[in-house]
């Protein structure tokens, strides 16, 4: 049994699996319990293949954060969660204190974020609104690195993050949770879900806020704006019979940011959808879905008490997906999508609006050739009406198991079509210069080559992944002398090479440790408008100890995040790409100590000390952590129905 368990850890390549505490009971969120491994053996993932597969059989390396892992990390923003475990992921501030992602050389618009497989509308400075990704009532988060456009189309250039909502197995589940932290950070939430066997419903409400935080030293930003967020989501599922399932969902999101004394930035989303899933027989199933997502931005003018909308992105999606299993080993997946993409923006001349239609078809064949060998191949065709861009995205991957080792190798194509914003922008940038769109943009494309090996022996697990990306036609703003402004342009090829390494240990008695390391190297031709902003070395570390008894359990964990300094070059002028100067952004480490206690399997108390060693940047760069030193947090989560 032990071997099987260890093999499961090994095959998954999943940070949560090789992390002992993540193996805690998914239902209770309590600390390590060896019996929970049985649950994890059955952990199903869907993101890598768009068909349900056990982690151990997934030909695509999938990292999974389970519900209990999410609860234990005890954060509000998904960025904090991803950064805590995955080296090479950095959420920083870009202009106007907007959150910006860098995942080993890939920006926010090159990593596709999905909620239950659905795209997320709206963006600001090339990043979606990550605050929308409420971590309450989440079953798990699946992350695949590398291009995945053969299944997901545009934007899946550097990876895919898929947030899977929870379906309660309990007849009734009622949870209230609350968290307070230094700097007037608050989070309060509640969930009610029920399951009658055929009908199940999950309702979740969350409120989070943070006060204005003044920095201790000089920097790009002297303070972090105060903000508040409301997230409401409802999902209703009905199983008509064993073969036919209907799902309806709706959600509302609101965020307000105190960016100016005289005006506040407001962000809203209204979203909903309906999905039908039908299993014809054991061999095949069909999924048809419609989804709607509207993301608005408005300025609330304090003096006039007016809430004036200046941005609205409305996406309607229709989706079809069919899986056919030939002999329970070989799976054919075919599907197609249609999206109507409407965008009104203050960044268009006279707040104009534009419309685009997107359609695609795809097919994938997942062939288990032998017990040791799995081959997966896929092809997808996408068409964007307004850009008149069409793109073919191929993929081929192999997984080979030998004894305690698993090897995976793949080639995958990725692409990102020019957005309506990039094509039609005509924006006066604070009366400093204009930014213009470009209707002649080509799609960004990438070729991703990846090789990985994993080895597990008893309590130890090692994995190593090497990859190389050739990214062509990346879209960015370039100074245009004729226009005397910036314009979106395609730039020359970029090569991104990297290594991910992971070592973990789980000893009997509840002690566990993990060390993950990522090396990234971006090679950009001289004279290109874009320069590397990716730290070459990053690591995360975790050591923990946990025990659980019938009525009490605890887990104490020390998490660390280590980022190397970044020495790069920047142009001395933003209007010419000739003279450069060397700049260095300092490295830093941030450690968090947390203690979670579970009482009677229904009450979780978690206290944390973040930035344990009181790191304060001497100067706050855009990519510095905007911390003023050590902070404290305390939270409680109560499952009422457990009493």
């Amino acid at each position, binding site marked *: 049994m032990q071997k099987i368990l260890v093999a499961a850890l090994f095959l998954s390549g999943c940070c949560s699996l090789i992390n002992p505490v993540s193996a805690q009971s998914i239902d209770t969120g309590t600390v390590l319990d060896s019996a929970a491994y049985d649950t994890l053996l059955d952990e199903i993932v869907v993101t890598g293949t768009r068909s349900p597969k056990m982690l151990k059989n997934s030909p695509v390396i999938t990292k999974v954060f389970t519900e209990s892992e999410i609860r234990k990390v005890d954060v509000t923003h998904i960025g904090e969660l991803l950064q805590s475990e995955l080296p090479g992921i950095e959420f920083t501030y870009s202009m106007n204190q907007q959150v910006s992602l860098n995942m080993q050389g890939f920006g926010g618009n090159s990593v596709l974020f999905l909620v239950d497989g659905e795209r997320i509308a709206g963006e600001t400075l090339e990043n979606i609104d990550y605050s929308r990704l409420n971590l309450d009532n989440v079953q798990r988060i699946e992350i695949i690195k590398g291009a995945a456009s053969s299944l997901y189309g545009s934007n899946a250039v550097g990876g895919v993050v898929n947030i899977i909502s929870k379906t309660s197995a309990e007849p009734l589940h009622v949870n209230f949770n609350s968290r307070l932290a230094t700097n007037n950070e608050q989070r309060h939430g509640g969930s009610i879900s029920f399951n009658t066997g055929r009908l199940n419903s999950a309702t979740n409400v969350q409120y989070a806020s943070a006060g204005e935080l003044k920095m201790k030293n000089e920097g790009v930003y002297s303070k972090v704006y105060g903000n508040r967020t409301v997230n409401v989501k409802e999902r209703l599922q*009905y199983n008509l019979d064993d073969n036919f399932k*209907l799902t309806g969902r709706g959600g509302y999101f609101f965020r307000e940011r105190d960016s100016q*004394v005289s005006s506040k930035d407001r962000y809203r989303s209204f979203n909903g959808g309906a999905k039908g899933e039908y299993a014809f027989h054991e061999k095949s199933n069909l999924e048809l879905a*419609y989804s709607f997502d509207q993301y*608005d931005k408005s300025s609330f003018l304090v003096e006039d008490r007016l809430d*004036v909308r200046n941005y*609205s992105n409305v996406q309607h999606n229709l989706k079809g997906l069919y899986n056919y299993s030939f002999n329970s080993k070989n799976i054919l997946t075919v599907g197609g999508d249609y999206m109507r993409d409407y965008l009104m923006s203050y960044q268009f001349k006279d707040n104009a609006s534009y419309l685009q239609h997107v359609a695609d078809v795809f097919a994938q064949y997942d062939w288990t050739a032998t017990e040791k060998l799995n081959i997966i191949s896929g092809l997808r065709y996408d068409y964007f009406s307004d850009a008149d861009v069409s793109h073919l995205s191929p993929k081929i991957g192999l997984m080979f198991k030998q004894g305690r080792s698993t090897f995976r190798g793949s080639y995958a194509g990725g692409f990102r079509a020019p957005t309506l914003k990039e094509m039609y922008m005509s924006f006066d940038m604070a009366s*400093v210069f204009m930014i213009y769109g470009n209707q002649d943009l080509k799609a960004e494309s990438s070729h991703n080559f990846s090789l990985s090996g994993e080895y597990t022996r008893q309590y130890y697990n090692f994995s190593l992944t090497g990859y190389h990306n050739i990214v062509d036609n990346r879209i960015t703003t370039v100074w245009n002398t004729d226009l005397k402004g910036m314009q979106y342009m395609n730039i020359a090829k970029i090569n991104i090479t990297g290594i991910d390494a992971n070592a973990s240990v789980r000893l009997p008695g509840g002690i566990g440790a993990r060390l993950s390391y990522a090396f990234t190297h971006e090679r950009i031709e001289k004279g290109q408008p874009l320069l590397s902003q990716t730290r070459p070395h990053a690591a995360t570390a975790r050591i923990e100890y946990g025990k659980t008894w019938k009525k009490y359990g605890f887990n104490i964990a020390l998490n660390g995040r280590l980022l190397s300094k970044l020495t790069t070059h920047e142009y001395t002028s933003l209007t010419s790409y000739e003279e450069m100067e060397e700049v260095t952004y300092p490295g830093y480490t941030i450690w968090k100590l947390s203690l979670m206690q579970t009482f009677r399997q229904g009450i979780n108390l978690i206290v944390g000390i973040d930035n344990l060693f009181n790191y304060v940047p001497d100067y706050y760069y855009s990519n510095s952590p905007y911390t003023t030193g050590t902070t404290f947090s305390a939270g409680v989560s109560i499952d009422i129905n457990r009493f």
Partner: protein
Amino acid sequence: MKPVILFIKLIMLGMIFLSFPACNGILGGIYDEPLAEEKNEFGFIETDETNNSGTVYIDATSYTKWTYIDFHTLTVDSLEISEEMQEPENWDIAIHRYDAKTNGAFVLETGFTGLSTIKASGEIPEGGYVSDEWTTNKIVVDMSGMMDGKLKYAESYYNRELSKWLFVDTSTMPPGYNPSNKVYVIRLKDNTVAAVRLRNFMNASGVKGYMTIDYIYPFEV
């Protein structure tokens, strides 16, 4: 079958609610429209002769214009900045973006945040009134070189005290805008006194550079 019917009804309702109202989005009604009258009407948009008070609304969005305000005649005039520019014969204060200058006046920032309260105080505050100063690096007339740190300035008088009505923090991008919300007392060169307060520096669409100034003139006790 009741739950099935209920469920299907709910789904249908949801579909109708979400997709039929508008392909281009729903619930647009929760937002406000920009105030229409702010688009075209500039100058002394409100005057209350009984209380010697009113509101001036000006378009100061251009970097290359001074807008001259005359409280005596309730007139406003804009002039393009150039070496040949001739200032109007009569004016009291002038605005360029958020910069202010006066026609030989002295200005004091008070602790009052409302015109009614300063009027109710029954006195003209005493203190260190500030006159204009000649500057060569305050009045930006060309922002196009900003990305290279090469702004073009016009030489001009500038009143540092009155310009405190809006502090623009350019250390961040985009800049931070911090209005003082205070009342400024202006001793004009004819020894009359005006009290002004910057109510807003944006139009209703949030475009910056549209200045709404409440005033009392003459301010007498």
